């Protein structure tokens, strides 16, 4: 390698080529990074610009890439076209409830699967993982009938039951792998000192895996916040509809000759803000939580 380099540098003494040889890889890395920034960034830029462009300016040919007079008017009109703040509250209840229930249930199950040796624990774990493959929409009909029978349609708790169950397998899997990393001696010591299992869980295990619980809470919050199918089918009144359903309702708004892209963009921006905040503060946790599921 070294010999080759010397040989090459004798051949090409052009300063640009020398510079490229030393920094070519870095240059390539930054070029790739720039492409990534553009590919990911442009759609967000365009959605944001559309949300602050007055609608008469938005629907013109060729399209404008920056408004001549930016305005928040689209946001105001959007929040009148649909009961925005009710939907926002519903989304929050739905996402917090689903992630709370799923993390609590998974923490208990995760402890059982990671710490207690009992016959059938592997089968339960495998069945749980395999059940992810069952498409939620394929079994929607009986789910809908059951919800009708028990009066669970248009209820927050009904939606939370469905959504938390959907994210359970991944949450359990991740928490099992977290708990297995925590040394078991502290729990044993606590048990010998006469603590009950519940005390061990609440005072030893859960505090130790608090970062993991937090991580799964954030990830499940994001997944629930983004969910469309369950609220679309099981929330039929404004009291339970979420923002994703509201966005679809806005699509059908016929106040303009085309779809109301101005209002839809405005609503999209507001719906992304909580997600972007979570990424800003919890990116490390999210990355480690998602990656852990993959390695297993």
């Amino acid at each position, binding site marked *: *390698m070294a010999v080759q380099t010397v040989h090459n540098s004798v051949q090409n003494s052009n300063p640009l080529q020398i510079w490229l040889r030393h920094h070519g890889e*870095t240059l390539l890395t930054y070029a790739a*990074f720039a492409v*990534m920034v553009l590919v*990911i960034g442009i*759609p967000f830029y365009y959605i944001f610009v559309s949300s602050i462009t007055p609608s008469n300016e*938005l629907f013109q*040919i060729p*399209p404008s*890439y920056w408004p001549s007079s930016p305005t928040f008017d689209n946001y105001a009109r959007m929040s009148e076209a649909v009961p925005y703040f009710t939907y926002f509250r519903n989304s929050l209840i739905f996402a917090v409830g689903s992630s709370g229930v799923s993390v609590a*249930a*998974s923490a*208990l*199950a995760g*402890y*059982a*699967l990671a710490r*207690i*040796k009992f016959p059938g*624990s592997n089968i339960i774990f495998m069945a749980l993982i395999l*059940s992810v*493959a*069952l*498409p939620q*929409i*394929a*079994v*929607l*009909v*009986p*789910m809908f*009938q059951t919800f009708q029978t028990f009066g669970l349609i248009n209820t927050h708790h009904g939606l939370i039951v*469905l959504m938390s*169950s959907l994210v*359970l397998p991944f949450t359990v899997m991740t928490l099992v792998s977290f708990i297995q990393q925590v040394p078991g001696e502290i729990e044993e010591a606590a*048990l*010998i000192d*006469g603590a*009950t*299992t*519940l005390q061990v869980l609440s005072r030893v295990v859960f505090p130790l895996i608090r970062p993991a619980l937090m991580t799964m809470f954030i990830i499940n919050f*994001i997944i629930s916040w*983004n969910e*469309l*199918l369950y609220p679309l089918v099981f929330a039929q009144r404004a009291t339970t509809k979420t923002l*994703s359903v509201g*966005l*679809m309702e806005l*699509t059908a708004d016929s106040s303009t000759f*085309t779809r109301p*892209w101005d209002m839809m*963009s405005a609503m999209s921006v507001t719906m*992304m803000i909580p*997600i972007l905040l*979570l*990424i800003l503060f919890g990116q490390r946790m999210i*990355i480690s939580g*998602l990656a852990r599921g*993959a*390695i297993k």
Partner: protein
Amino acid sequence: MATTSTATRPQPAARGFRLSFAQRRYLLAIALLMPVILLRLFTTVYPFIQTAYLSTQKYNPAFPPQKFVGLGNFERIAGDLVVQSSIEFTLIFVFVSTFFQIFIGLAVAHLLNAPFRLRGLARTLNLIPWAIPMVIAAIGFRWMFDDQFGMIPDILRRVFGVEARWLIDPYNARLAIVLVNIWKSTPFVALLLLAGMQGISHDLYEAARVDGATRWRMLRFITIPMLLPIITSVSMFMLVWQLAVFDLPYAMTGGGPGFATTVIAQKIYLEINALNFGFAAAIGIVLIAIVAIIGGIGLYIYRRVEVSQ
């Protein structure tokens, strides 16, 4: 719960009925697992059995009575052009998307693993497409692809001189949906592959460097082979998971033009809205069968890859 926690105390009070330590631990495990098991039974096993039953029924609540039709619904599926087209598009969607997600995902993971100053920023940026709602990606791109006012046709026209109608032409509409899906989910795949790359020992690369291996050969003979199990499992997961796609085509094209971008899930949704519950259940069973077949093949390949490592 109370009994099991009492039972784990070191010296339980002598009673007539006592459980062995193993039995007590077993009961405790079951009690802790109960919420998860009940929730999963309620939302998967029970509705699955009901769906299998309903698929043999002609049942529309608006047009009673319900009656047994055996495989009648499946015969109808075999002759239904929309269902056939939805199966065809779903398979195209899933396989093309997964192929490019893995391919581009490897490149992105490589970038996110490279030592450069903005790496942290790149990793954060990579999370964003995964984390935003699919509906927003679908609607945002639907707007950007708009044949009249959209930015993508405008740029293609002005910069490359290409005239393309995206959402009116069935092939282009399918292409557009697959592109958006690749944009949305490649970052997630890249993240998982990155985790795999970080698990590869540096010694391997050191040894290769000493032997004078080029970057490309290291990628070809170390990174890819070492990542093969994770590439297989991620591919399998993406294939199976994306077979159930609903929100992207629903929010982006509504299944159109015609039925060109209708996926199986949306066909089920349409039948449910039309209250054809028996027929919808039968399509659901077909979807589950496709998932089982592809998942089974994937699992088989994964086992072989894992063994050969």
